[in-house]
């Protein structure tokens, strides 16, 4: 198992190098001068040229890329062009906020989506099934930020029971989490329903029924346990995706999270911040996927033998 984890961690390295290369290339081959950005519009051209030289911006692309990588490996990701602070200061500052919104959003989606999905599979073609399928269909079609605006309209502006923007108390996290939950919940309902339907038709479920196992036992022990693998994958993928910061939802609720931080940095051509944020998100997503794969071994012992063999 440990060997497997180590191998997976090693496999993350080329992916992260690739991402670094792509983003670095996009940021370098496009108009906009970081030196000009630091010194301001009115700075004399000589100063700008000197700073460019100092930052090494005039070196060839590959030289700069290799230098960036070798600095990064030693833990130096540079400082923000905008405020000269180490880039990870602000990322670590903002990440907890993003994490909270994503975590509660996914939690709500799991606790509502999974039971609905199971129920609609067990009672296929019933009225519950129809309602949940139609509901999931509507939710998938609506962009998360639009759901967020509707939530603000209803709970903050009309009913006036929850705050619309900011992050100062737990109440502020309710609406953004619900907005995150809305879209992911639809995915969870669809996924749970379809995998459960597949499992319910298996022979071993008929056997369980034949030997007289109670209905809840069949649904939870025999069906759900076997349907859980793809569901956990989807949950993990969605969580990892949300951890990258949902730019639109952060914009709707004025949340100072990772997503809005990255958008600002991209627009201001603050290369070190963009690079560090994206590498950070990629590592978090990679670790998340690894965690899901490790979780598999607890859900399905067959997977464990595969890992230990490999």
């Amino acid at each position, binding site marked *: 198992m440990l060997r497997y984890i180590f191998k997976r961690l090693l496999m993350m390295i080329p992916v992260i190098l690739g991402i670094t290369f792509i983003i670095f290339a996009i940021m370098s081959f496009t108009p906009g001068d970081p030196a000009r950005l630091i010194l301001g519009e009115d700075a004399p051209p000589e100063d700008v040229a000197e700073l460019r030289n100092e930052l090494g911006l005039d070196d060839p692309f590959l030289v700069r890329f290799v230098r960036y990588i070798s600095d990064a490996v030693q833990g130096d990701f540079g400082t923000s062009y905008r405020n000269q602070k180490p880039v990870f200061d602000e990322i670590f500052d903002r990440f907890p906020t993003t994490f909270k919104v994503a975590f509660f959003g996914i939690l709500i989606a799991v606790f509502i989506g999974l039971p609905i999905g199971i129920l609609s599979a067990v009672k296929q073609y019933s009225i519950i099934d129809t309602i949940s399928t139609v509901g999931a269909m*509507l939710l998938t*079609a*609506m962009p998360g930020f639009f759901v967020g605006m509707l939530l603000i309209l209803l709970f903050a502006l009309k009913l006036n029971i929850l705050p619309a923007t900011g992050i100062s108390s737990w109440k502020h996290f309710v609406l953004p989490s619900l907005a995150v939950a809305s879209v992911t919940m639809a995915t969870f309902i669809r996924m749970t329903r379809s995998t459960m339907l597949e499992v319910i038709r298996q022979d071993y479920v008929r056997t369980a029924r034949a030997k007289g196992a109670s209905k809840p036992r069949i649904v939870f022990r025999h069906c759900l346990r076997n349907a859980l693998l793809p569901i956990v994958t989807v949950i993990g993928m969605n969580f990892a995706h949300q951890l990258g910061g949902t730019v639109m939802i952060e914009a709707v609720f004025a949340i100072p999270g990772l997503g809005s931080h*990255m958008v600002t940095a991209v*627009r201001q051509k603050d290369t070190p911040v963009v690079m560090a944020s994206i590498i950070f998100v990629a590592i978090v997503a*990679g670790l998340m996927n690894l965690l899901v794969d490790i979780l598999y071994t607890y859900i399905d012992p067959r997977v464990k033998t595969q890992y230990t063999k490999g």
Partner: protein
Amino acid sequence: METTGTVTHRKRSQLSMIWFRFRKNKLAMLGLIIFLMMILMAVYVSIFGDYERAITMDMPNKLQTPSAAHPFGTDQFGRDILMRMMFGARISLSVGLLTMVLSLVVGSLIGAAAGYYGGRVDNLLMRIMDVFLAIPSTLLAISIVAALGQGMFNLLLATAISQIPAFARVVRSAILTVKGQDYIEAARACGTRGGRVILRHILPNAMGPIIVQATLNIARTILGISSLSFVGLGISPPTPEWGSMLSEGKTMMRYYPHLILIPGAAIALAVMSLNLIGDGLRDALDPRLKN
């Protein structure tokens, strides 16, 4: 004519069989009708009024609630919301379709090459795709737009690039399932070259999942464009676009909720119709998949 149902049934081409199964799916037909109506609306919107009406400010008439002259009311600049919504369909649908075509062509080529040649080519191409997949797609699109500058073409490019890996994966797996079959080997035994085998023999037989992916892809692109416009990186005002309409209406939504409800509903309707078509096509193309 005395020909019985069974005879005509057997003579049906594969395409008409698919259409037959698709037609029986009420939800999918609903989706198709909504989508066709949206396309008609986008193409013929100029009958109802000039583009000028959608972009010219008319301050005396600002923020009107729905009336006979303005069925959906006007926005904070006095522009007719119905006109803006209908002209917005042009942008969303055309960028959606073009993005689909672009990412379909590039993604298919990459996926086909990877699936057909296998081995080292496969490994290299798919690892590159994995890297693109590992970057959050909104973020990738944002960096590309930020890098190239705003505008319709750059938006198209940005959304297309972030959609390529999905197509490459679908096409690759579709090809892998077809590749081992006898007629492919027969074609190769006849001395057909790789490119021709892919284009003439493999792709037509792997079309099903690709078409489904293409439909869902348009839906995703429409969501993507509106998201980018919403944060101010997509289509810039005053051009009518659903996402930027939402972002403009945000500040006023407390007293004039119709400012956000109309464009939001337009996005939801477009995306939902495409999702329904996609699901219907999936069932029609492969009846075995249906529960």
